[in-house]
């Protein structure tokens, strides 16, 4: 008898902490056949929180050796070595052997950008004040380029504010390349439909026929657009190339979708899912976004996802008020970063930790092969706006999961002083762990052996 790969009962799911997506689920469990361990999907999520975290110790948020560790510091413990958890990081205690904290890492490309802008390069490491003014490819897209064709969606780009934002105030983590930010999706219903209901109830033959026609139409449209391009000046031609490339990439997607119509869609019943949850319910909303990533991974709809939990310029979004909704803090979430009120800063960090731990738990609670989903998933969680003062150094970085992808956990590592290496080194190791054979990413100088087992 073959073992089902996603062996989880509906009850377990209902139990799974959250509310939003307690599911009557999953024919997914039955259509998927057990795959050999070698072929088991290797996944990666890059997630980002804004306005930094509470690091009360010293300048740059580094621990001061003389003082005892602050119970509300974002860093779980003072010294490198085995993890001990404090109040702020307590939600991760059950994941003691699945998380690693990395201290002293950052992207040199973001140094001169100021804290409110360095979020742009969190997943890219681009030198935006130097030679890469329009940013560059992000880690998830590097992976998607290599393995994206294996799943229905090459990648999943999520955020809480939606769209691309502007240079210096990005609302997405993912970029195809210079000048090509990928707009993040932020409406649960829409994300769900893209993942699990793309044909909107049409017959598969009709869908296929339609796609074929679409391809021919896109060809004609491309032709039509080129006739306009011919008549433009050089700079304008470049600008219009954005459009033409978009059409080409839709053509490729049509082709790809057409291929995928031959494989069954994972069936997920929407009953009981609150996909209409809005920004006014912080916990439900954030968890719903995490749930969608979880479902996409679970059903192998995609293997690479990015999730911007808040942008660094959220002042015209509801995210700005989350600290008020959640903690009753009488200022914006951004103000917490500046004033660092002890009673709110730590609690705000903890609230965010709870939501992230919820996601880790869902992965861990889901069996896969002889381990669980978290063992085959890398989860990066951090910020490029580390603490107060618009700093751009020493990011808070936590990496979780991937124990069966060669990662080893349970420690705080410090890369301070003469041990300093670029954050991009971690990215190289992450990419290698999900079978993307790169030797260099952005300004990397090697890989990061500290997080690897053996």
């Amino acid at each position, binding site marked *: 008898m073959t073992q089902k790969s996603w062996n989880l009962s509906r009850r377990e799911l209902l139990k799974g902490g959250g509310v939003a997506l307690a599911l009557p689920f999953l024919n997914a469990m039955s259509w998927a056949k057990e795959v050999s361990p070698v072929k088991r999907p290797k996944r990666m999520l890059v997630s980002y929180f804004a306005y930094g975290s509470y690091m009360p110790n010293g300048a740059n948020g580094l621990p001061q050796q003389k003082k005892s560790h602050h119970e509300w510091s974002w860093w779980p413990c003072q010294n490198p070595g085995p993890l001990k958890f404090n109040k702020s990081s307590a939600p991760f205690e059950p994941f003691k052997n699945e998380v690693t904290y990395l201290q002293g890492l950052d992207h040199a490309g973001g140094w001169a950008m100021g804290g409110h802008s360095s979020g742009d390069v969190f997943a890219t490491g681009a030198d935006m004040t130097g030679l890469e003014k329009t940013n560059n490819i992000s880690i998830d897209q590097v992976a998607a380029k290599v393995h994206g064709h294996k799943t229905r969606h090459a990648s999943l780009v999520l955020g809480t504010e939606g769209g691309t934002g502007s240079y210096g105030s990005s609302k997405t983590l993912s970029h195809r390349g210079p000048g090509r930010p990928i707009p993040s999706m932020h409406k649960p219903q829409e994300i769900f439909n893209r993942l699990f209901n793309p044909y909107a109830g049409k017959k598969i033959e009709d869908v296929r026929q339609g796609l074929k*026609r679409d391809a021919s*139409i896109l060809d004609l449209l491309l032709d039509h657009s080129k006739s306009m391009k011919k008549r433009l000046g050089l700079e304008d031609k470049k600008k219009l190339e*954005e459009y033409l490339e978009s*059409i080409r990439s839709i053509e490729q997607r049509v082709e790809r979708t057409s291929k995928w119509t031959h494989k069954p869609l994972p069936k997920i019943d929407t009953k009981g899912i609150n996909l209409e949850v809005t920004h006014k319910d912080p916990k439900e909303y954030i968890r719903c976004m995490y749930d969608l990533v979880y479902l996409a991974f679970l059903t192998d709809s995609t293997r690479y996802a990015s999730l911007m939990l808040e942008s660094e310029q959220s002042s015209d979004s*509801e995210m700005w*008020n989350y600290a008020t909704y959640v903690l009753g803090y009488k200022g914006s979430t951004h103000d917490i970063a500046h004033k660092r009120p002890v009673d709110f800063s730590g609690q705000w960090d903890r609230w965010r930790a709870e939501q992230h731990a919820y996601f880790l738990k869902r992965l861990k609670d889901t069996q896969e092969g002889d381990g669980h989903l978290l063992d085959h998933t890398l989860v990066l969680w951090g910020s490029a706006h580390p603490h107060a003062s618009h700093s751009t150094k020493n990011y808070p970085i936590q990496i979780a999961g991937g124990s069966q992808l060669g990662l080893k956990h349970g420690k705080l590592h410090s890369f301070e002083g003469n041990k300093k290496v670029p954050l991009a080194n971690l990215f190289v190791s992450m990419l290698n762990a999900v079978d993307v054979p790169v030797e260099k990413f952005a300004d990397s100088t090697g890989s990061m052996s500290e997080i690897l087992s053996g």
Partner: protein
Amino acid sequence: MVLRLLVLFSFIFLLTPMGGAFESDSNSQNFKNQIQPFFNSYCLHCHGPKKSKAKIKLHLLSESDFSKEQNLKTWEKLLEVLKSKEMPPEDERQPRQQDRADIAHWIENEFQSSLKGNSQKHSSEPTVRRLTNIEYENTIRDLLGFRLKLIENLPKDPQKPYRFNNTAEFMLMGPEQIDRYLENARRALASAIVDPDKPEVHRTRRDWKPHNLDRGLGLDEVGVWGNRRHSPHWGMGLKSFPKTGEFRIRIQASAILPPGITELPLRLVMGYSLNINSSTQRMEPVGTVQLRNTLDQPRVYEFRGRIENFPAKPGKIVNGRRQADTMVVTPQNLYDDGTLNDGQRPLEMPRAVIQWMEFEAPLVQNWPPEHHKRILFESSLRQENPEAYVQEVFRRFMSRAYRRPATENEVSKFFKIYQLISESELTFEEVMRETLAMVLISPQFLYHTVQDEQVSPHYEIASKLSYFLWASMPDEELMKLAEEQKLLDNKIIDQQVRRLLKDSRSNSFVKIFTSQWLSLTKLKTVPINKDLFPRFLYYVPRGERAGTEEPYRPTIRDYMFEETVGFISELIRENETVSNLVDSNFAYLNQPLAAHYGVQGIEGNQLRRVPLNPESNLGGLLTQGSILIGNGTGTAPHPIYRAVWLREAILGDEVPPPPAEVPALTDSAGESAEKALTIKDLLAKHREDESCNDCHARLDPWGIPFERYNAIGKYQPMVPKEGTRVRGFDKKTHQSLIGYQAYLQSLNTISIQADARLPNGPRVEGMRDLKNYLLKNRKEDIAKNVLKRFLGYGLGRELTVKDRFQVQTIFERSKAEDFKLKDMIIAICQSKIFTGVKSK
């Protein structure tokens, strides 16, 4: 005069073959003899090889820099700071006035000769840019003849404070975007082209009777609050309605008006039911009427709209079957005298009586509707030569969608697409919808129209005018003028600008322009400290969401936004001078705003021009709630935010963001007023640290004179003593808002200090002084800033140093007209930089 001489001067040199050599020779002489020594003695110790504050390294500049674009900006900055005496800093050794002037003159001269040659060229900036989301929605509205809400389905356009986002840099395009455009295009055409048979008409009606009058509000009444279950306040549910089409709602209504009140604003909204204790219900306003008729004269009011624009609640699944989608039409009593939900006196407030309500959709009296016939026009050709008919449909539709005549080549491409789509089993209407949807995702539609060898510049000008002043496509009149090649005639442009500004479509321009220029959106998200300002916003009185802001009704913040937009609109339409931005003898208010600001005698929710008396502490932009709240913390004023706003939005300076690694100060934004740092302390802290002081010495003083305007934008000269505990509003203790205000008044014993010495300027004490200084000394700077904003927005690109002289030309003309705003816009539209006439 000076300028003209300069022009003449460089002109002569350009003509003389010797000129070039001689000029550069004398320049390099000048540079060595005058400029470099000047730098050496006044500048280099801060902006040189050792220290380079603000990353300016003057020792690297040379006279040949004027040919390099990247250095032009440094030179321009240098010119500005020299002229304004911002540099050298006041506490440093100062150059002689004559030296200053000489250097400025030399730089000006260099600009002149280097820019003259290529002033038409803006090679680095593409002219091709896509429509912004608002322009896109407006364009489809004018193309199809009815409004559809399409923006929600598009990725948000990027925004940057104080910048316009209609530039090529911001208007990016990616595959995800085109997906959405296609979805929108299909939706739009599904609404625009109807099927030939008259559809079924859906009707719903509900009546209400005046029961239970002895127990508070009657069952046919809608009060501001204190509403009863099953009264019209609960709305009329709809279980049957079409997916597309125009609807009509009729209500018979009257008002119960207490003495002294003459009207009641009644708004209808449609969507989810609003009587569920949740802030996540979705709805859209249908329209607002002012009820002035009383019970003895009931009247029927009619509302219309497109059903597509209203959110239907998806039907539940019961026993495996999905029930019908539902919507609720809810009437709201928007009467607001500024006391908000203060107190328990629903019967003293005006109430609406609604006897019945009727819903009908779609409207089929004229079938097919006008908007259908506009595309699939009636013609015998359709029978006689279907192919020719289809091509003619494309030609007409594309020529409008592309804002210029479609070429034969373009029409034939779409005919091929049409043939492809015809292969599937679709009706004629379905095929046309799908084909025309493709027109709406082609770049000729999505990008602004530019001239090329096939398109005359007149079409580009028509589009430029309409997208500048309407944020939408040109109408028939503009297109006709383009066809007749008349749009390079200044008289015609003058007429057209006046006509466009008179049209209600120009509201869109004023709204986008004002909101981005003044960075207004912050206003809506600043968290207001409810303890200190208990009756500023509506809060839910009870239930699990007690204390959260009441959703679904316009708040005073919405009115403040409208106030500022309306104020600017008034200045433009009435051709007022630019000084009004700083101070004006009128405000733009409605009753809630008037109550907030303490202006007497304004009734009703409609905003209007209201004359001000000089003691009002109001007038101009600086004291408007939108600005003061948006640049405060919700608890306290924030002098730094306000200073940045004043310098960016009004004076046109670029204020650099706080650099990385500069430690943050505890700013005045505290959790409560008690903990707030006084401004003096704040300033002192800034002065302690050199890295702060460099910027803040030139920043903070601008914000101090605002200090007497509190975090909700009210004039408040007194504050509680430091350490005073301010109790929040409590109905039992204070009875009413007035009682609470009296309590607050009694605590406010310390008068606020609002005096500061402006950088390179006089000492000012409070807002009045600041305004006087701005009006007297900075009017031209402000006017130039406004002019550049209009121009940059109109061109859809950032202005560069290269535009310097063109801007100057328009500026001189506008100055002669006392910087009147409408005239300024006309001057811009007539300028060469705007019309883009290429000199051949």
